[in-house]
């Protein structure tokens, strides 16, 4: 790693920290100053002392600037506080665990996206205007047109319910999380729309590249087809694909919000919705902080991939 790259990484990490704190500060202030209601609202009115004890427990009886100061201090020490709804649940370890789950799902979806997208795109380009191209392109159009929650719901119905009935329980997708077999269907639901994007992009890019002079030269030299396609054509065709990997990975990370809720996966995306519905403001802020940092880190990772594929790029 060059000195320039190291400086670039440090600069980006500082920027990510600043962005995460800034975004979560906006959420913190918005929640505390603008939104009506709180996690303690119930039909049975709290007596004043009970409410005072609750507010005191969570520092909510302090002036807003002091609350903010305590919160920022906590964040910088890695302590995002305690859940307002689920007493005793510390938010930082909770979100770290849930982040792990979301990353597992996101990574599986990304592998599916890139693997399936590249394969479809590659075959569609190499067999242009054949039935293979039509099938691959049509599949991509279907995936591109359908939102992931529709795909997810259909997959749950087909693989979770109908497969169970058709095979009398011998083969089906088991709802839940924790077993290796339970990751495949949600990963497909999450990755399919993005795989379609990659497929379309790869096809277009490959069609352009395989008509280039240097590819023609490679064929003329008598190189084996695998060498020409993989080493000469695909490597260059991948540059635009890599370019969209950043937004694509970010899309997958935010897409887990929907997918985790449909499949009941205990990850950060499910927490995002639950905490908002429960008015668990402390967790909401924590989730925003995590997401802000995560998106920044993913983009940094993608940016660091560029020099690997294109030596002209330097930091």
């Amino acid at each position: 790693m060059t000195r320039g790259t190291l400086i670039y990484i440090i600069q980006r990490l500082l920027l990510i920290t600043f962005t995460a704190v800034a975004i979560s500060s906006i959420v913190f202030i918005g929640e505390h100053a603008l939104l009506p209601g709180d996690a303690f609202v119930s039909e049975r009115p709290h007596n004043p002392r009970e409410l005072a004890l609750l507010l005191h427990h969570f520092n909510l009886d302090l002036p807003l600037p002091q609350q903010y100061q305590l919160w920022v201090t906590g964040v910088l020490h890695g302590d995002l506080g305690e859940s307002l709804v689920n007493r005793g649940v510390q938010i930082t370890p909770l979100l770290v665990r849930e982040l792990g789950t979301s990353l597992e799902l996101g990574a599986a979806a990304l592998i599916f996206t890139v693997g399936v997208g590249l394969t479809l795109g590659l075959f569609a380009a190499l067999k242009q205007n054949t039935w293979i191209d039509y099938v691959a392109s049509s599949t991509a159009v279907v995936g591109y047109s359908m939102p992931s929650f529709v795909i997810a719901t259909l997959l749950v119905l087909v693989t979770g319910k109908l497969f169970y009935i058709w095979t009398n329980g011998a083969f089906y997708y088991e709802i839940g999380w924790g077993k290796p077999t339970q990751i495949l269907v949600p990963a497909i639901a999450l990755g399919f729309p993005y795989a379609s994007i990659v497929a379309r992009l790869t096809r277009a890019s490959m069609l352009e590249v395989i008509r280039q002079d240097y590819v023609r030269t490679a064929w003329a030299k008598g190189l084996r087809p695998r060498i020409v396609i993989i080493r000469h054509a695909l490597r260059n065709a991948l540059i635009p694909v890599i370019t969209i990997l950043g937004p694509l990975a970010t899309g997958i990370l935010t897409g887990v919000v929907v997918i985790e809720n449909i499949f009941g996966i205990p990850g950060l995306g499910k927490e995002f919705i639950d905490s908002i519905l429960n008015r668990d403001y402390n967790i909401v802020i924590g989730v925003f902080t995590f997401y802000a940092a995560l998106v920044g880190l993913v983009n940094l990772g993608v940016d660091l991939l560029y020099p690997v594929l294109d030596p002209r790029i330097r930091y």
Partner: protein
Amino acid sequence: MTQRSGWKALSGTVLATLLLAACGNSTPTSSETLAADQTIRFPINDDIGTFDPAHQSALVDFDFAQNIFQGPVKFDNAGKIIPDLASKWDVSADALTYTFHLKQNIKFSNGDPVKADDLIYSWNRAALAGDAYAGNFSPIVGFDAVSATPPTAKTLSGLTKTDDYTVVAKLSAPAGWWLSALALGGVSWVIDQKVVTAKGEDTWWTTPDGLVATGPFKMTARVPKASLDFAPVANWWGGSTGAIKKIHVDVIADQASWVTKYEQGGYEIVGYANMSPTAEDILRYQAGTHKAELTLNPSVRSSWVGFSFVKGPFAGDAGKDGRSAFTMAIDRAQLVDVACAKGAQCTPATGGLIAKGLKGYLGDGADSTSKFDAAAAKALYQKWDPTGSKVKGLKYTYNTSATNKLVAENLQAQWKQNLGVTVDLEALDRQTFFSNRDKKTYVLFRHSWSADYDHPQDWFDNLFTCSAGSSGSGYCNKTMDDLVTKADQKPIDQSLSDYISAQKMMIADVVGAPLFYSIQPYLVKPYVKGAGGNAFFDYYWTGLRVLTH
């Protein structure tokens, strides 16, 4: 039959026979053959709020904790108060002194013995914590000092012991409802001071080794917001813990996936811990071949339309005909059809405002104000407000939720159709709505209540008496108040008729327009026995058993 399966069958039969002798509340038959795997799995939509008895208030938390904790008395599955940690209790002739005689062999799950000091510590701690149910100790002498802001005492002066196994509670006034409040549990459950001190006041209950209590089950694992596991306490002081060896609970927000997983064999039960399958699933089971797996139980919640008695057109005697017209104009069957998914989630309220299945429920069809009669309603309305001036700009106010919106829109349509009255709808956020309702701000509004414990006092003192904090309407009937005050002091078997008379006064005064009672659905696999619940809570886990299937 192989040797292994033969042993399984034999051990199953032996276990079933033992259960028959051991379990009071469950009713296993000698022909039952238990499965080798005695695991029950069910889902909940969010993690538990707290297992600390001093802070518990959510029904979901109680449904778990009643299997972990114990107090001096409890409700059995049929809703009868029975001894739990106490072998017996005495009430003095003036009903001011309660003496609890604790059993002498009680042990916490960590082996610590339980004595009178543990009960006194637990009660004082809960009273001082001042959370939602601390008021259950309000009858005890000294509660005012403990609950003052700031507290002027840290212990209830009326709570003492005469020896290691006898606790005496002196009351400041007779309270016939008090045993019911104690039997519900929560603040009255006994905890281990040593553990609380060692593990921390706020966090002692959050881990399996910290959650120490006297009940038949203990928590064995917890992944916050993901899963909970429970197992019977080995050598439980109370004897048999029943057949079940493991309870596994998944935290999954999506209700639809619960039933899919149930149908995949991933859950034995859906509906425990105050959860509900989706309305679509309930309707599907009602119409399908697996109908027997579905049970719809009355729940503890009742919903009605509140009328203001302090301002607006419905106030006082002058507003009575208007109140009657507005309640008579509601076709509850249609309302339930529209707002409760064809009755899958609630039933029409026809037996008073106290929910069906609870003490004080008047009986189906007993509330004359819930009878739908569009013609009579319109005639009464036109007599009361011939020019329409009284209801000009009338608003129905509710807090935003999908169900509340459906209810509000249906009421609006029915009042328009049956009375010719245009009622505007006002949807507010929860905080604003509840806060203003307690201040009696609204003229026509949504009201509902979930019983805290199975005693009419809970409803009257919170909702219907002149000083009720959650009344919303400002209804005040001194004659009824006097009757309720006297009834509150008597045991339930002597006071029930007074509460029923008081409810009849409310019906005569048309205090509200009853709408519906909530339903608690249970989906239970046919090979699981002892599952279900009463209006208040799930049946205890000690009675559950999984048969061979």
